[in-house]
């Protein structure tokens, strides 16, 4: 047996390992820790002494104003479409990297993800002789595996030094879109490995002495389809950070280093204490929910997100076991840090919107994941379209938290049913009318309908689920830059609504075509065409499902020139009436990998509705009639769903007949309803239907999880998930065509044989005669 190492030998060994690390990949110690760091010795000293609350308030006000100013700079100067709609933020962090404050109208999720790469830089680059962290440096990053939502978002992170000591970090982040991925626009559904995702920037230094390093900028420009965008927004992020730095330096000059450190730290510690108090006032128990995505973006499949939230005293545990296993060759995986960031973003929009926006909110939370699940994906999984599970992540907690919060004597916001939860927007790419290559996505992603609320209906097309203020953009501006033409823009989707006592807000129709480009195409990355996306609350109904509709083999501009009156700007009419002769009309799941289109061909989709709140029979009949007046629902919906009786011509409600219709419906429910225990005996099946490509646990039991491996169902232990590997959809299609050909050939051969037999039979007969 070897003798143990002496302390000197061990120190030498440790030094050797430290100095010869093969690869600085994402560090699990950073990526799996969402909590704030322990106080530094200085923070401990400062916060153990009495704190001047007035001074903290003044410093906080100045920093908030500075964050607002720097965020506005991005909005005014940024070139990315996302920057024009509010898809960016600036933030300020403690020296250890904990997020303390964001810009008042920033997308908080960005900053709530950037603390991970800042902690990476602190841990690995500070003492690395070839890198180092110095005054005037700036670091760039986009790979979500090191912290982030998805790889379209690029961040600039800058340390601020005072008296040669690091006192805080600041950041600026923009959803850039294009990043050189296998499909234009930065969110490739076709990515089958992480190497199809385009730029994958681990945190590295791209600014020295407050200047961008042009050699590195050139490398990045050379790696994307839109080099102009890459340069311009790197400059924008840098100068936004520089302005923010200038303001923070002023605070340091005026109030001193200690006031800044106390303010940043106290902000997050106060939040932790307040969250513990809020958890304590909730009832102890467990609330469960689940949400289904019906697509991998390459094929239809039912993927489960399974959630159980348990509250006990001041502890809150989020248990995501039983969710779908990860997919090795599909892009819809997310890592656990991205999941936590987006759960947090949705939480701040729907549960506690009044709290200061700092990730410290989640410090009292515990999380439980299965390894290799779709929301705890391993390093090698492609994650370019993590938005599929992550958009659901933002809304899923609304249901269990509504059940925890409903009983409270005090509410911090309204109880709200889940918002629509899929990125229903067109992603485009190609050559613009200005002969420039581009790839990005439309602002419609920000127009999702809200869920119904305890006190009123949901808002229409109000925002994305990650930031209440984001806008849906100006069509005219888009049409100036791009060959896209919107035939139908913001018409609300009549009858496509989450019905309830308080109905959801609605989405709107998007009717796209293009002209003036020799090469232009689209992709969409969205689930919810077979299984509804938005969950309802307290007995309401969900959103409907939404298809992608196409009108191909035509040029609508020619039709508009010849017979403009025959082309309605309404998806339902266009598809049902098929007014353009000779065109090919079709519907598809809203998951389409990039395809080139011809000028004048039409692609149509809808932004979706949220979930409905409460029993439809409790909706005020007057509100139902108002929905008709506003053309949100049809007469049939009013009569058949809401059971309102009215005069079609005048719109006058027959109150007596309505009360009777509703009473009759309640009686009918009691007649058709089956007692629960009896119902589950015939309803429950031991496993998912054979023909359903199902991924996740079946029922409450998370110990067994279903998945798909090369087209075959597999059952696995929840504690040891296996990565799924999907067949190439084209191979599946070819196999189905080959099977059809074989069947035709067999039938043909059978028919020939039967014909020959028939022919031979009379001859035999004649011979006999």
């Amino acid at each position: 047996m070897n003798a143990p190492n002496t302390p000197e030998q061990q120190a030498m060994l440790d030094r050797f390992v430290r100095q010869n690390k093969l690869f600085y990949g994402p560090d699990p110690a950073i990526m799996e820790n969402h909590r704030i760091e322990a106080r530094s010795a200085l923070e401990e000293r400062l916060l153990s002494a009495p704190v001047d609350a007035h001074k903290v308030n003044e410093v906080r006000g100045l920093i908030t104003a500075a964050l607002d100013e720097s965020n506005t700079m991005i909005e005014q100067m940024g070139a990315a479409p996302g920057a024009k709609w509010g898809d960016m933020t600036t933030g300020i962090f403690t020296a250890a990297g904990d997020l303390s404050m964001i810009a008042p109208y920033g997308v908080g999720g960005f900053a709530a993800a950037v603390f991970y790469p800042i902690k990476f830089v602190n841990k690995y680059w500070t003492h690395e002789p070839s890198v180092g962290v110095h005054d005037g440096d700036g670091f760039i990053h986009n790979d979500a595996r090191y912290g982030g939502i998805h790889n379209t978002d690029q961040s600039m992170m800058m340390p601020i030094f005072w008296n040669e000591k690091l006192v805080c970090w600041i950041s600026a982040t923009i959803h850039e879109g294009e990043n050189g991925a296998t499909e234009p626009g930065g969110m490739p559904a076709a990515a089958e490995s992480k190497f199809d995702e385009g730029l994958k920037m681990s945190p590295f230094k791209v600014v020295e002495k407050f200047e961008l390093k042009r050699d590195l900028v050139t490398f990045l420009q050379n790696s994307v389809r839109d080099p102009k965008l890459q340069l311009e927004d790197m400059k924008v992020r840098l100068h936004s950070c520089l302005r923010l730095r200038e303001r923070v330096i002023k605070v340091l000059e005026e109030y001193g280093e200690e006031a800044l450190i106390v303010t940043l730290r106290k902000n997050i510690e106060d939040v932790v204490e307040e969250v513990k108090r809020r958890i304590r006032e909730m009832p102890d128990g467990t609330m469960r929910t689940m949400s289904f995505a019906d697509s991998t973006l390459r094929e239809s499949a039912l993927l489960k997100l399974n959630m159980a939230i348990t509250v006990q005293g001041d502890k809150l545990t989020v248990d995501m076991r039983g969710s779908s296993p990860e997919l090795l060759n599909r892009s819809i995986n997310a890592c656990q840090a991205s999941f936590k960031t987006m759960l947090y973003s949705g939480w701040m929009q729907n549960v506690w919107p009044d709290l200061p926006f700092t990730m410290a909110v989640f410090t009292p939370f515990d999380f439980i994941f299965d390894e290799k699940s779709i929301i705890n994906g391993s390093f090698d999984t492609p994650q370019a379209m993590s938005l599929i599970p992550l958009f659901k992540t933002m809304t899923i907690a609304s249901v269990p938290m509504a059940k925890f919060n409903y009983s409270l004597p005090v509410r911090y916001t309204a109880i709200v049913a889940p918002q629509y939860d899929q990125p229903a927007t067109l992603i485009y790419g190609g050559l613009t009318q200005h002969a420039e290559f581009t790839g990005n996505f439309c602002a419609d992603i920000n127009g999702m309908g809200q869920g119904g609320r305890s006190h009123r209906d949901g808002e229409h097309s109000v925002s994305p689920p990650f930031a209440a203020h984001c806008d849906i953009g100006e069509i005219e501006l888009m049409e100036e830059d791009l060959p896209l033409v919107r035939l139908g823009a913001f018409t609300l989707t009549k009858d496509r609504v989450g019905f309830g006592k308080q109905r959801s807000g609605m989405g709107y129709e998007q009717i796209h075509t293009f002209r003036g480009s020799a090469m232009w195409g689209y992709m969409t990355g969205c689930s919810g065409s077979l299984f509804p996306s938005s969950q309802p609350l307290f007995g309401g109904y969900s959103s409907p499902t939404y298809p992608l509709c196409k009108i191909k083999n035509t040029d609508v501009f020619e039709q508009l020139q010849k017979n403009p009156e025959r082309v309605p700007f309404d998806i339902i009419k266009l598809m049902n009436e098929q007014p353009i002769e000779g065109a090919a009309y079709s519907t598809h799941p809203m998951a389409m990998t990039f395809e080139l289109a011809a000028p004048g061909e039409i692609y149509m989709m809808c932004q979706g509705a949220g979930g409905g709140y409460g029993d439809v029979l409790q909706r005020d009949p007057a509100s139902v009639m108002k929905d008709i007046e506003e053309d949100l629902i049809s007469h049939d919906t009013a009569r058949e769903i809401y059971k309102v009786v009215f005069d079609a011509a005048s719109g006058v409600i027959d109150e007596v007949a309505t009360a009777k219709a509703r009473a009759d419906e309640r009686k009918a429910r009691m007649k058709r309803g089956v007692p629960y225990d009896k119902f589950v005996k015939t309803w429950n099946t031991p496993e998912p239907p054979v023909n359903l490509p199902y991924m996740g646990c079946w029922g409450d039991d998370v110990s067994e999880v279903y998945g798909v491996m090369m087209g075959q169902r597999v059952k696995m232990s929840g504690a040891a998930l296996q990565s799924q590997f999907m067949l190439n959809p084209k191979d599946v299609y070819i196999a189905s065509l080959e099977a059809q050909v074989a069947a035709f050939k067999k039938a043909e051969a059978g028919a020939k044989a039967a014909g020959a037999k028939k022919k031979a039979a009379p001859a035999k007969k004649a011979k006999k005669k």
Partner: protein
Amino acid sequence: MKKVLITENLRIDLDTEKWECRSCEAELIGARENYKRGLLVHNRDPREIHKPLLDPAKYELTYAPNPDWCRILEYYCPKCGSMIETEYLPPGHPPIRDITLDIDALKAQWKDRPEVSVPPADKDTRQRIAHGGQRAARMFTGEEK
């Protein structure tokens, strides 16, 4: 007798330890049980609610969910027919137990809380708290005057 509102449609009577329907006040089942066991259930074809808007003769996808993938379980109060809950599930998926409460802890929590028979008035955001720190939070909730 103290009752605690748990959802828009359900409450718990802490003395009798029963789930109750808030519409008709009927007792449903013991509060330590899965409340769904006190209700009626109907397996609804989702196309009856989310009706096809595109012509099913022309298109496979019509804005209506696929009934082979999705069903709606509607839960009714057996006494008044109010719809207490809905659940969207793939066919045969066991319904989930969405609410499990520690009734003893609930009783202890509400021992000194005044009963709330009408949900607190909702506002979009309660700005009054204004990040005023822990004392302001306690004043806001009435824990401190």
